[in-house]
């Protein structure tokens, strides 16, 4: 009986996450959008500009976790629909929510793993992390939030063409980077800019990183955490609801 309940389904979600990591971590879109794109974006904006190392660190870690946590999740469903493995998954005793939590866990782990690299680079370059625990918690929440966002981006349209989803995902991701305090701190934005920034989950993560390295933050740490949790729940619940409705269409 337990197998149909929460714990049993959660175990199955971890099995799906393991499968995703084995299959997708080295796929083209993941490498391009998760590693190469944020790296070059970082170089394009920060090289030659006279900025304190802490500002560079915020930009690098913000973009890395944002892009890497969202690199696998949008591509999984269309890939699996095309290769007809989604049909296999749907015919197994795994609930839709467990299936997508599995995909989120894979993206989350990948995002966290990749984001450790800029943290190490920052430490080597002499960045002083004043609140390491807050940074760790922030990274965990942000990676989970962005992974859930990736799942939401693949929910509609119910296509089996991965490039369509990756294009939509890119259209959403890049503007978000520009409005989230990665390049221009929120405190230096116009009022309208701050209002727009408040709709992006990345804003709250960069604010947390600024707090951890420079003790400068626009929102309180508590507000940043609450916002990240709120966005995660919103993305996850909406994504699962839409996927539940669109899976049959995707398979037909």
């Amino acid at each position, binding site marked *: 009986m337990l197998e149909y309940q929460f714990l049993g389904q959660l*175990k*199955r979600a971890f099995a799906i996450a393991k*499968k995703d990591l084995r*299959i997708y971590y080295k796929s083209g879109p993941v490498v391009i959008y998760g590693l190469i794109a944020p790296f070059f974006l970082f170089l394009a904006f920060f090289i030659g500009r006279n900025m304190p190392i802490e500002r560079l660190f915020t930009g690098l870690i913000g973009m890395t976790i944002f892009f890497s946590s969202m690199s696998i999740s949008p591509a999984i469903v269309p890939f699996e629909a095309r290769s007809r*493995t989604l*049909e296999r998954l*749907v015919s197994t*005793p*795994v609930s839709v929510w467990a299936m997508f939590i599995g995909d989120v866990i894979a993206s989350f782990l990948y995002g966290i793993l990749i984001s450790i690299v800029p943290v190490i680079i920052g430490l080597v370059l002499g960045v002083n992390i004043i609140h390491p625990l807050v940074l760790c918690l922030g990274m965990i929440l942000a990676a989970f939030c962005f992974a859930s966002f990736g799942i939401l981006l693949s929910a509609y349209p119910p296509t089996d063409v991965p490039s369509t989803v990756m294009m939509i995902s890119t259209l959403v991701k890049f503007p978000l980077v520009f409005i989230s305090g990665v390049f221009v701190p929120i405190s230096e934005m116009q009022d309208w800019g701050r209002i727009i920034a408040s709709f992006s989950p990345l804003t709250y993560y960069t604010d947390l990183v600024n707090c951890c390295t420079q003790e400068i933050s626009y929102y309180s740490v508590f507000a940043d955490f609450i916002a990240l949790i709120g966005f995660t729940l919103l993305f996850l619940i909406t994504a699962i609801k839409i996927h539940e409705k669109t899976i*049959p269409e995707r398979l037909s």
Partner: protein
Amino acid sequence: MEPAIEVKGLTKDYKEITAVNRINFEVKNGEIFGFLGPNGAGKTTTIRILTGVIKPDSGAATIMDYSILKEPLKAKQIMSVVPEMANAYIDLTAWQNLMLTGELYGVNKKKRQERANHLLKEFKLYERRNHLARGFSKGMKQKLILCMALLTKPQVLFLDEPTSGLDVESARLIRDTIRQYNRDGTTIFLSTHNMEEANQLCDRIAIINHGKIAAIDSPENLRMKSSSLKSVEVSFNKPASANELSKISNVTQAKKIGDKIRLYTDEPHSVINSLIDYARSRGLTVISLNTLAPTLEDVFIKLIKEHKEH
């Protein structure tokens, strides 16, 4: 005994096309049930509904008394599917595919490893267990998918065209496996185009056409019911005209098949006598003469034609 599968008034529309139209049938516990029909008849849609992949627009279906609509996880737990298109994860090894299947069904580690070893040896894939499925031939992939379906020891096994496009040896291995698991108590729901396969394997057969069930019965009963499809096959030492032979009384149709002529009739004995008279009167010698019962293929074609006319 409760049926293993019970289908009541199942309907599924795709825009303007009714893929499955209020179908009803039962599959008995422990039987091999064949599901035949031409392309686009509704076979795969029915299997997809019964395996919980898509939802019907109306009607109900139960697997071992679990409603596929109300208790889908419980129903899915006791069944397995071998879909028409190969869909193992090609970027995982055979072993990883099997372990993943076990984990998705909640089979504990020791049991899934034991079962996987046993099945890989049984299907002669053991040596390739650490190879990616990407490099497998169609036959090997199909065997791997069957291994994945059998790993969980399902009570009900759905197979959608399991031997389609396979070489003779692989097809025979799969047919033998179906028989063996059925002997051990697994109920089999088999969709196939291969009439001989259905004839050899199935206890009962349903023929579906345009989303409706045209007939359900045992292969033998279906043949018996189609008495008009009995035939007499004759060959003479010299060519004879099929057109002329079709005029013999009680012959409904005459067809030239190679060097033989097949005469369809309800009364084979009377036609044999007439053929002897015909040969004598024209100075012909009968080289061979056989009476033939209708094949399942004949029955299938007749039923599909009748169904179209209605």
